[in-house]
């Protein structure tokens, strides 16, 4: 029995809330992504960073897309990293910043939502999900102060509103609800500028997917840490669409079609679609 982890004894007796991360915090704190140790030397530039994520609402839902590049300083550390995660049937999150912490956070957050749903027999409200993520980001603040910053973008279909909603965060937590569209990461400035011109209210999911891909392309165009679509290696951005039917990650060949039509257009107009001035 001595080899049993300590939490084994708490499985039947824990009477706390329905939060999984709280259970871990009390009975198995070493499993939480947040740590309070201070680093001997700053590692900010040496570990992989995830870059640009965009999200925009569409008719009856929301679209999120992310590029595939991770960088360590000036090195491209991974070309096909996945930064958009399904968190439950009606929500997803994208991460920017320290990749390792972000991946772990996304994994924990998914369990957190599921744990509540299974124990309580109902899903968390969309606000509840957004608040929960804020608390988890805040828990990472000591790490963020040492350079291990991770910032998520959260998108969900809200059955109560019958539409998509987007929440952004900073290192201290949040959430900040965003209207229409938002982006995070190193290329976010360029992506947001692009989306500002391409976003149409109540556009179809297909149109919004295309707008998001254009925004990612513009971000990759001007930000060295954001990767464009890799035609040679056939590495496409990750695109997720959430509607009343649930979360759906577009399969690679479907994204490839969108990307190819976009690239074809950019062959003749490298700066992308031009918004009408008058």
């Amino acid at each position, binding site marked *: 029995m001595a080899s049993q982890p300590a*939490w084994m004894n*708490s*499985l*039947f007796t*824990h009477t706390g809330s329905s939060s*999984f991360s709280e*259970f*871990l915090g009390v009975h*198995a704190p070493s*499993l939480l992504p947040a740590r309070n140790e201070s680093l001997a030397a700053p590692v900010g530039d040496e570990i992989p960073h995830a870059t640009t994520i965009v999200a925009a609402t569409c008719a009856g839902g929301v679209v999120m897309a992310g590029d595939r590049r991770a960088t360590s300083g000036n090195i491209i550390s991974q070309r096909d990293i996945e930064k958009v995660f*399904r968190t439950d049937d009606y929500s997803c999150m994208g991460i920017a910043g320290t990749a390792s912490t972000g991946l772990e956070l996304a*994994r*924990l957050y998914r*369990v957190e939502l*599921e*744990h509540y749903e*299974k*124990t309580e*027999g109902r899903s968390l409200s969309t606000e509840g999900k957004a608040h929960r993520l804020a608390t988890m980001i805040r828990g990472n603040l000591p790490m963020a102060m040492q350079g291990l910053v991770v910032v998520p973008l959260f998108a969900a279909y809200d059955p109560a509103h019958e539409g998509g909603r987007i929440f952004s965060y900073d290192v201290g937590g949040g959430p900040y609800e965003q209207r229409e569209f938002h982006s995070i990461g190193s290329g976010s400035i360029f992506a947001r500028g692009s989306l500002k011109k391409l976003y149409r209210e109540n556009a179809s999911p297909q149109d919004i997917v295309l707008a998001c891909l254009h925004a990612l392309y513009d971000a990759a165009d001007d930000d060295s840490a954001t990767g464009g679509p890799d035609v040679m290696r056939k590495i496409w951005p990750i695109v997720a669409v959430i509607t009343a039917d649930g979360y759906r990650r577009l399969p690679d060949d479907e994204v490839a079609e969108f990307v190819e039509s976009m690239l074809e257009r950019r062959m003749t107009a490298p700066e992308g679609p031009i918004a009408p001035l008058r």
Partner: protein
Amino acid sequence: MSIPFGGYASPEQIMRDRAEYARKGIARGRSVVVMQYADGILFVAPNPSKALHKISEIYDRIGFAAVGRYNEFESLRLAGIRYADINGYTFNRTDVTGRGLANLYAQHLGMIFTESIKSFEVEIVVAEVGEAPEDDQIYRITFDGSVFDEQGMAVIGGQAEAVGGRLKERYREGLPLPQALDAALSALTEPGGERPPATQIEVAVLDRSREHRKFLRLTGPRLEKLLEAAKESQESAKPAAEAQTEQGNGEQAQGERAQGEQAPGTAPPIAPEGDIDTGSGE
């Protein structure tokens, strides 16, 4: 119950009393059926409550069904969810298995049975759906921590033997969902009795064709449609079922006798008066 005043009770007597106490509590509820069908595993429980479930999701491929005292099996259910989530988070989602969970429950129930004054009045099923029907697993765990690796189907609670006997007559490998539901419902209904309407039953499946989480609770219009389909399949399957019943008569009679031996004619000497709280207001 542990030690009658002043006297000595042998360990055998204590265990026998505890087992009898638990068995009586469990037999007072209604039965729950867990069985394989073509695409996975089906759970059916008569339960008028919409909120207090007897069937629940534990993890991606694992479902849980219980009978007996609600507060007791609810605490087991929550512990199972914690166990699965913490293991899946520590290792990988595929590393959470029904076998591990069944062992956890068996350990805990066994400990309660030997160490506590009152044993848990519950019987539970842990079912795991695999990639193929051969990989499906159904474990039945009783109040004393015994684990049974069931093949194809399991019935717990209430008149489990009689229901199990009726289910065996109708059960075949690889039944489509409507037929499987029909078999489960006819097993749960006493001969000549009326079937419970959609509002009085709790139905869920572990469907291996689903993505991510295989557990799906069937409610509302979806369940009603399925019940319609079950009724249709019942009419077409009738002649075959009747032929089977004739063959199975001897077996059934045996089952009834066994049950008669077990069920006492008088009120239980030690169990509390009145109905057990199953959480569904039966």
